[in-house]
């Protein structure tokens, strides 16, 4: 299924650093992934993992004054986005690659009407007349489920609720039918019921417009809901990547185990939540081995010495952990993970590593 689809975006060995008072913060340390047409790739990680930096680097939104792409490339339509000037990026932003941000309160300009804000990208990128742009904007408002679009067109952001605003933000992002939509924690600030609505909306629109989505979040429930494939980031690197079923039912990296076990399940009656101790590493002085080693109860000596390579678990599933090295001892993942793996076995029937 996956291999037949066209690759829209390819990130190769991306290394990005920030220059701060205290020194060089190596925020992204060798990130590789692909995005295929029509799929939703979720990038999961906690604060400091580098997921937001990755998305901003694709859009060229990192501050030029103190950020530096040290190595690597972001390939889109035969161009390397890291090498493009701001003017060249402006032609791509909003048209081919669009972004939805987290906070609906601050993503909209409070002094412009909603209508004006939706028309903006259309007028800029599509050489449309004002009439045509307005028509398209009204279509988009209906598409994102905003009732009475003609009325709403003339209103200001403060007249909309949080959920409605986020719908408008999605409308603006999709105005020019972008090939890639980057959604950076789009529902984190929303209530559960509104979140559900926005996720449904995004999935619906994705089918209609065939856009590929990079969905950045720390909420694993949301990931299970929207993603086709998942990349787990930690300490500036991707530590595990695979299809959503592989990641949730057959995870291989101890960090992924930790993440999945630290969420209470609605049916199990567990006594104690498994909590990953400690805090993420300081990227000023990144640890030389596996970035997760210091918090990993399964860590081996080599985890502190060398960074693990990406081991293949299946055609679509890779994990960067020394546990997958032939010499590594067999370990018992936490009980809740074992439960998931049993489910996986039952479904797939043997397509995994024991």
């Amino acid at each position, binding site marked *: 299924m996956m291999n037949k689809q066209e690759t829209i975006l390819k990130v190769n060995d991306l290394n990005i650093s920030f220059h701060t008072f205290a020194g060089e913060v190596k925020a992204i340390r060798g990130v590789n992934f692909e995005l295929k047409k029509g799929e939703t790739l979720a990038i999961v990680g906690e604060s400091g993992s580098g997921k937001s930096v990755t998305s901003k680097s694709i859009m060229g939104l990192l501050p030029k004054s103190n950020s530096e792409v040290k190595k690597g490339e972001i390939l889109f339509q035969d161009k390397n986005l890291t090498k493009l000037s701001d003017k060249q990026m402006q032609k791509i932003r909003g048209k081919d690659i669009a972004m939805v941000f987290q906070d609906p309160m601050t993503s909209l300009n409070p002094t412009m009407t909603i209508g004006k804000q939706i028309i903006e990208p259309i007028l800029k990128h599509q050489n449309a007349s004002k009439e045509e742009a307005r028509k398209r904007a009204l279509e988009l408002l209906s598409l994102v489920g905003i009732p009475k679009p003609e009325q709403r067109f003339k209103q200001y952001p403060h007249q909309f609720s949080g959920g409605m605003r986020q719908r408008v933000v999605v409308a603006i992002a999709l105005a020019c039918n972008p090939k890639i939509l980057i959604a950076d924690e789009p529902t984190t600030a929303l209530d559960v019921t509104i979140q559900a609505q926005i996720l449904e909306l995004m999935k619906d629109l994705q089918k209609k417009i065939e856009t590929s989505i990079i969905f950045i979040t720390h909420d694993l429930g949301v990931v299970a809901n929207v993603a086709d494939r998942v990349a787990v980031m930690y300490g500036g690197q991707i530590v595990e990547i695979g299809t959503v079923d592989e990641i949730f039912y057959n995870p291989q990296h101890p960090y992924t185990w930790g993440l999945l076990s630290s969420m209470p*399940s609605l049916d199990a009656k567990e006594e*104690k939540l498994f909590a990953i101790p400690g805090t993420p590493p300081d990227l000023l002085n990144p640890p030389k081995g596996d970035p997760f080693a210091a918090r990993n109860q399964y860590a081996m000596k080599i985890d502190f010495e060398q960074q693990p390579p990406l081991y293949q678990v299946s055609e679509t599933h890779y994990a960067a952990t020394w546990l997958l090295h032939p010499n590594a001892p067999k370990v018992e993942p936490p009980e809740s993970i074992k439960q998931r793996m049993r489910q996986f076995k039952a479904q797939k029937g043997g397509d995994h590593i024991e």
Partner: protein
Amino acid sequence: MSEKDVILQVNNLKQYFNVGKPNEVKAVDDVSFDIYRGETLGLVGESGCGKSTTGRSIIRLYNATDGEVIFNGQNVHDKKSTADLKQFNRKMQMIFQDPYASLNPRMKVEDIIAEGIDIHDLAKTKQARKERVYQLLETVGLNKEHANRYPHEFSGGQRQRIGIARALAVEPDFIIADEPISALDVSIQAQVVNLMKELQEEKGLTYLFIAHDLSMVKYISDRIGVMYFGKLVELAPANELYENPLHPYTKSLLSAIPLPDPDYERNRKRIKYDPSVHKGTNTEFREVKPGHFVSCTEEEFKELQAKQS
């Protein structure tokens, strides 16, 4: 029910803002519930439902518009002498939501944690104060060296633990946790929640746990109350609420929670809540099953009771 020790009674609590003016807000509108000593009562709802306001009214950060809050047998909103107030402040404490705003950025961690100790003269010497702070830091899983640092040097989860240490310093009986984990990463949430559970066992604490993350609330709470636009719509033991939700809003809320389970997610159907679905008159908070309360009309009450048997 009468054998259980009630530590907090909330009776018909009303908290209105801008009363009488066109922008009047009925943040908490006639809410009643009891909390038993040693339990954790979860209070959930979406933004604007009044759960935080309820917590803050209980601890006297707001003066209640109407109704009463009875803590350890005494009315919280009565006029109190300074000594009484001090007692009250020691017995009831609060943990806040925003780890970045709940600690004074200009104070060292040691002074932040020791604030309560200083106010209530709980340490006789400087050394004793230091010892107590170190003890508290260890209890929450931090190091002694952290006492000399400033809040901005810590991560969100660590700051939240400092906030917990601060609350524990005065040895309270009852802690209101106002969305203590909402601003934290997933794996850190588990750390803080585990810590809170441990502390509850060790020190016999009672919690009011206010949150909007329903899966975490279920994990930590014994009983859960669901709020909607200032009113309590359902109150039941945690498992009962999830297995057998009775109020349509609760059902809608539960059906909207995404779980880390792709199979489940592919099949989940969301139920939408329409307030106009209620039929009948006289909406009151009624006990449909022992321990399970629902806000419903007389007719709905009869229907629900029929279904339970």
